[in-house]
């Protein structure tokens, strides 16, 4: 009995440590993205000293040996393959006006995933790959796709595939609005919301590698490099928009519209702090 109490106390103490282990200091008012990214990457590499930087893009599969073995087997016949094939076909098929996706993107859309999202200085806002794809469609007289799955997931899967291995290269131009968008994204990432009072960081900074129910939480570093993903939980593919909106509803917050400014800024921040890590999408997750 006594040893059980000691064990429980030790477990509680460890849990308390785990939840307070995030370094905290008063944030300065002037954002410094370079210093942020350096500190962000250092935090995770120190937390998981056995992992190489590029391993973080494999999410929970890098955190757990059993899961890693399952993943290696799964990759023999990847569950996202159908989506990848569909995306490749869709990408090559011309619109009704004879133009195609390739006409809307630099380098005909091949090998450019690592540069998205970017800050559009003309518009003064962040443009994600999903947004750019729908804008391309609309500019060519085609209706936009749903942002969360199916066609959008297929197109981004193909575009990510053509960028596999290329490091994220998100730029913040010398424009105060770009810095503001970055800072807004950072604030969104750390802000607690929903009835469960969780922030993105609660799971993906404080608790990566830990279980939340049956799932192993992924680290925030490299989180978007594998997108879009096939999730067994979803029985299908999902985009970054799907990931953000479902995260919000899981913590009992009402999700914003996909591609709301907050989500675009969040994607900008999260991608920037993973600069240098390779694109690995499309991915598969439990």
């Amino acid at each position: 009995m006594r040893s059980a109490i000691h064990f429980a106390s030790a477990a509680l103490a460890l849990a308390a440590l785990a939840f307070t282990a995030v370094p905290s200091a008063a944030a300065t008012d002037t954002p410094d993205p370079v210093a942020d990214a350096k500190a962000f990457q250092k935090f995770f590499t120190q937390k998981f000293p056995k992992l190489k930087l590029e391993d973080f893009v494999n999410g929970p599969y890098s955190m757990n040996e059993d899961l890693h073995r399952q993943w290696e087997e799964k990759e023999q016949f990847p569950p996202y393959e159908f989506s990848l094939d569909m995306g490749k076909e869709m990408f090559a098929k011309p619109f009704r006006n004879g133009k195609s996706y390739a006409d809307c993107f630099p380098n005909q859309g091949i090998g450019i995933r690592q540069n998205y999202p970017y800050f559009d200085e003309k518009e003064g806002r962040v443009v994600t790959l999903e947004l750019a794809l729908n804008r391309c469609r609309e500019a060519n007289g085609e209706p936009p796709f749903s942002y969360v799955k199916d066609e959008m997931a297929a197109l981004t899967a193909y575009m990510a595939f053509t960028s596999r291995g290329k490091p994220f290269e998100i730029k913040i131009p010398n424009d105060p609005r770009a810095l503001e968008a970055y800072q807004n994204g950072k604030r969104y990432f750390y802000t607690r919301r929903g009835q469960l009072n969780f922030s993105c960081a609660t799971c993906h900074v404080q608790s990566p590698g830990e279980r939340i129910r049956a799932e192993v939480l992924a680290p925030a570093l490299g989180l978007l490099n594998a997108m879009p993903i096939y999730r067994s939980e979803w029985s299908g593919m999902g985009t970054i928009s799907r990931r953000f909106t479902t995260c919000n509803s899981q913590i009992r917050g009402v999700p914003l519209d996909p591609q709301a400014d907050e989500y675009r800024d969040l994607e900008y921040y999260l991608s920037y702090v993973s600069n240098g890590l390779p694109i690995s999408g499309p991915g598969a997750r439990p």
Partner: protein
Amino acid sequence: MSMIRKMRISTLSLASVLLIAGATSALTAGSEADFKAAYAAAEAANKEAGALRNQWTVTAAALADAKKAADSGDFDRAVASSKEAEALARASIFQATSEKEAWKALEIH
């Protein structure tokens, strides 16, 4: 049991049912206004949470439950759910307001 006794019991039962129904409808009439006031207050608070981009799904669920209860004439439940929705909405407003600065405590430096 005689026919007359049976009839008396039936009449008494019917009278009881009518009395209960009357009492319920009197209660209902009295609390519909309460529901409307409580629901309006909850909706206003949830709208404020929406302006802060921080609505909760449970608030929406409580509001929906209040509406459903009111539609079925159960104003006691409708008032209770409206009050719950308002409390949840106020909590989400508090969260959004306090997080304006509190988020910095979680930041990696």
